[in-house]
């Protein structure tokens, strides 16, 4: 069974339909890229996976999204629980206005964890996983806003990792970074897929081709083609896919 199974998903911002009949399965411990022209619904789809849309009034889903078999679109889904198993990293880093340590410990503390030695271990582990430990181990008490942009982005990743998510969603999370920081995050994603499943939106075709195992092309709220990355980039079924990955369209 795949980790996430999306079946006939429609999504509406109020009366505006933003996703139409999307069906795809996200494989476990793999990186899946979502690509497509601006406004095609990549972010919208991503934010369905942790029901972030529920924060705003008027949004509506139809269809099914199964996470390990459970339909997370059901009315009685526990959103707090869901969101800690489906983490999210945004385009711009989002350090909380607190120390590096408190940032990473934020999620575990929300769950009621107060034991300091447990938290210390958790923070170190998450920072190591996010390849940030060596750079910040002497600055844990400093305000996270003082880190560089790339460090802040890895901090956001570490913060997500500290709540042991099944899935991490990346929404163009390298597009605001310099090439070296961006490369670090790419390497990190490859490293992380041992432990978690990754869905990443990107506008960077080389990046999608380099790091992801599967790629989905979207257009106007629908899924155009979804397959192994290698197939999407070398011998896609659809003409539109071929043109898009060659940069001749969109």
């Amino acid at each position: 069974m795949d980790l996430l199974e999306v079946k006939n998903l429609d999504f509406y911002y109020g009366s505006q339909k933003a996703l139409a009949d999307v069906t795809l399965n996200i494989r476990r411990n793999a990186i899946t890229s979502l690509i497509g022209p601006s406004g095609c619904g990549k972010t919208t789809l991503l934010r369905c996976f942790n029901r972030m849309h529920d924060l705003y009034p008027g949004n509506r889903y139809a269809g099914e999204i199964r996470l390990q078999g459970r339909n997370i679109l059901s009315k009685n889904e526990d959103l707090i629980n869901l969101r800690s198993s489906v983490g999210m990293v945004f385009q711009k880093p989002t350090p909380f206005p607190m120390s590096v340590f408190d940032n990473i410990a934020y999620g575990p503390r929300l769950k009621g964890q107060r034991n300091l030695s447990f938290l210390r271990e958790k923070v170190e582990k998450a920072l190591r996983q996010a390849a940030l430990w060596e750079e910040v181990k002497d600055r844990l008490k400093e305000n996270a806003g003082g880190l560089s942009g790339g460090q802040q982005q890895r901090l956001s990743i570490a913060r997500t990792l500290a709540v042991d998510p099944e899935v991490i969603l990346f929404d163009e999370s390298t597009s605001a970074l310099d090439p070296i920081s961006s490369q670090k995050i790419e390497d990190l994603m490859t490293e992380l897929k041992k432990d978690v499943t990754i869905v990443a939106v990107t506008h960077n075709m080389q990046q999608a081709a380099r790091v992801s195992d599967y790629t989905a092309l979207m257009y106007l709220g629908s899924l155009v083609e979804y397959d192994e990355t290698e197939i999407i980039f070398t011998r896609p079924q659809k003409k539109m896919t071929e043109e898009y990955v060659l940069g001749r369209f969109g």
Partner: protein
Amino acid sequence: MSKARYLNLGFKSLTFLASLSVLAIIAGIFVCLLWESLPALRHFGIFKFLFTADWNYAQESFGALRPLTGTALTTFLALLFAAPVAVGTAIFLTELCPHRLRGAFGTAVELLAAIPSVIYGMWGLFVFAPFLEASVQPLIGKTLGLLPLIGFFFQSKLAGGVNVFTASLVLAVMITPFIASVTRDAFNQVPATLKESARGLGATQWETIRQVQIPYSRQAIGGGAIIAMGRALGETMAVAYVIGNRHAPLDSLFAPYATITSVLANEFNEAAGLQLSSLFTLALALFLANFLALYLGKKLLKKEL
């Protein structure tokens, strides 16, 4: 030069002169205040003037301690009462209020700030003070008033409802809208993704507000509060109505007392000689405190944006 360039030059000089005149007025006021204060400062000395509680017309002995502490205490209490209400209002306006009603509620809060302060004073004197005296004062007297050591400070000794507590509450009502609107603007500046990050880790809306949004906006909130403090410091009419302007030691929260503004409003007309100069010295202190508050407040607000 062409006509347009002459006009442009004329326009530039005009605006320059206008802004220069503002500076000149401020400097002029400062110099006047200082000049008129000199006799009192010479006679009593700065230190003695600031730390003496005397206010005696017959012996011509004047000290600023009571008005200074009165102003500090009412301002402090006003901030203490106003800040939580203002932050709560801002939370409601930005997070909880249905979108359709936001405009209306926001305007209502701003209207509160537009009411002339003399009206607050009249309302405070005729409506609020009797109400507090009848309902709140006895309640506090029966609870906090029973505490050992500090209890006496919460007992009502004089009738009338005209006292430090009422004055602070009226001031609080007056500065709440300002702090609320600054806080609302600060909350609106919090990036959506920051809130979503907290929600994404499993925080509730309340946890997000308390642990992320408020800390993120704390500088702006602080700046707003300090500017509001400046207003409370200098608020004359409302306070003059409800503080009682009494020159006696403060033995209760529910006793009349004096503030710089109440002393100025009540005594300026009939004062002469050393008393007049002492009043000018009080005004100078107020001017400086206000200036400082505005400067600090603006500085904090700017850092945030």
